[in-house]
């Protein structure tokens, strides 16, 4: 790519790394994996930058890369490129203060199939409209809605079970 294209790429991605990390973390629930996910997405974006930079909505396009990479990871775990060795312990999720409720939600989300998790995260954590989610995932709006319904139903079951266990433990 030409110098301008490279400069544009670095400027664009650098500014969006925190947001992409948040999306990646919401999808996978693990700091290390989220970093790998963003790293791999940044690599994919560079490969496609020449066309990607002309996307109607570049932010949506890049989010789609992150989401699809995450789904691909769950389907094709061998596909990931090793970029780092062991990360320092200090960067782990243990340093992140979290509430019990948030932990429960994150734990329940992690138990959803990757597609349902992506739909829930995009719609309710990142306020992405159904039509945009459909385009990002390459499916119909109806599929997004049904995935949402199934995902929420499973979350209800998971969270209800947890509530029951908590009550039983306290009583």
């Amino acid at each position, binding site marked *: 790519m030409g110098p301008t294209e490279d400069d544009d790429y670095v400027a664009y991605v650098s500014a969006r790394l925190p947001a992409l990390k948040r999306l990646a973390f919401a999808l996978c629930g693990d700091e290390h994996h989220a970093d790998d996910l963003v790293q791999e997405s940044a690599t994919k974006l560079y490969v496609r930058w020449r066309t990607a930079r*002309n996307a109607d909505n570049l932010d949506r396009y890049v989010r789609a890369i992150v989401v699809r990479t995450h789904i691909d990871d769950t389907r094709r775990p061998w596909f990931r490129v090793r970029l780092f060795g062991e990360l320092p312990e200090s960067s782990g999720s243990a*340093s992140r203060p979290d509430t019990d409720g948030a932990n429960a939600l994150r734990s329940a989300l992690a138990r959803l199939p990757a597609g349902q998790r992506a739909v*829930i995260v995009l719609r309710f954590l990142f306020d992405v409209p159904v039509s945009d989610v459909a385009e990002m995932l390459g499916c119909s709006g109806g599929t997004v809605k049904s995935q949402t319904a199934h995902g929420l139903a499973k979350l209800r079951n998971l969270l209800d079970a947890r509530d029951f266990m908590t009550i039983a433990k306290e009583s």
Partner: protein
Amino acid sequence: MYIDENNAADVFAPLREANVAPPRVDLEAAIGIARLRRRKHRLAGASGVAVAVAAIAIVLPLGINATRHGTPPVASATSDPVSPPATTAPARIPSPAPTSLTCTEKLLPVPDGVTMALVGGGDPTGRYLIGRSYPKGQRPQPVIWVGGVAHKVPLPGDDPDLSAVSSNGTVVGLSFAGQTMVGYIYRDGVVSRLKGTNVAPGAVNNAGVVIGQQDGGVAIPLVWHTPNSSPEKLPLPGPKWLGYATAVLDDGTMIGTVRPTAAGAEQTIIWQPDGAFRLLPVPTSLHVPHTVGFSSASVRGNIISGNVVVNKPTVTTDAQASYDLATGTYSLDPQPPRFAATGSNGHWMVGFTLPQETARPALWTPGTGIVKLPTLTKKADMDAPAFISDSGDLLAGQDTDKHGVIRAVEWRCH
């Protein structure tokens, strides 16, 4: 806790506030690996050279404006032809070009009964195919198919992968030792480590000359004159130039892509065996606006395939073009509508149909147009051939079965 569409956003509010650590992302590494991957994802095959997985022009969804600029694909003479190597054989596609083709699909055998596998490349004749299998719970296993018979290639290290195979069955590949890339050559059933650290062999010829690159985010082109020799840096036009080698022909001619700085415009370079080099002319004759260079991606026969490099941020161009070493002319590659190419033999292309939601693996030839390939299930999941032989009758790649498992397959087209 009750949760439905009406309150989901509120329920998930605590997760929005999650205190996520600053991202640990290395953009220099991303760019370096992307360049390596982009090079690797092009099908190479110059008289005995073939790089693994191919991807020439993936047209992406999501409203991307991926229209092609430039003139129709008419060859244009340049003033600077390069003599073709004497040993380069012409592609043996059928003549006259067929107007219809029928293709059949076959699962390839995989060592140890493993089901998950794929083909990433092959030699121009198609006698040798290379790829990987994915035994459950184990690291990937590099595989070479010789005349349809599968053999394991025992590369040590993590994430072993095969890069290329020559038409006499010499294979190069790489794996990781921690974060360090290590190169290997496989001949006569024996794996030998190539000298050098953080090196990525990209191609090999029948004489065992290996080309590749040293990669630390920015690439330096290398050559191993013999499998046992230390790598030598290939000469570059200036002190700050960078680049990588794409192919090595059987007469020792090497072809690569270089740039004056890390962010400079890419140019195609041709090295003679003695190290003398020349840059290919900038393909201004193709009339792609703001053309400043040409990056080589693969070589088959006399044809160097690659990308027209432009230097204008407002110009949408992903123009694929070819340079004919025999005539010294550039031409724009055909771009069939609703087709994304993943490989080429210099004349025909393999890939998949668009849109992505209903993608089917496909072959494109000038006489037939797009020929959809048979698949294991109705849902192709963007599977596609990664390889097409010079003769065009053998295609190979991956296809997903009814269990969602990727299988190594070949297609025969007649």
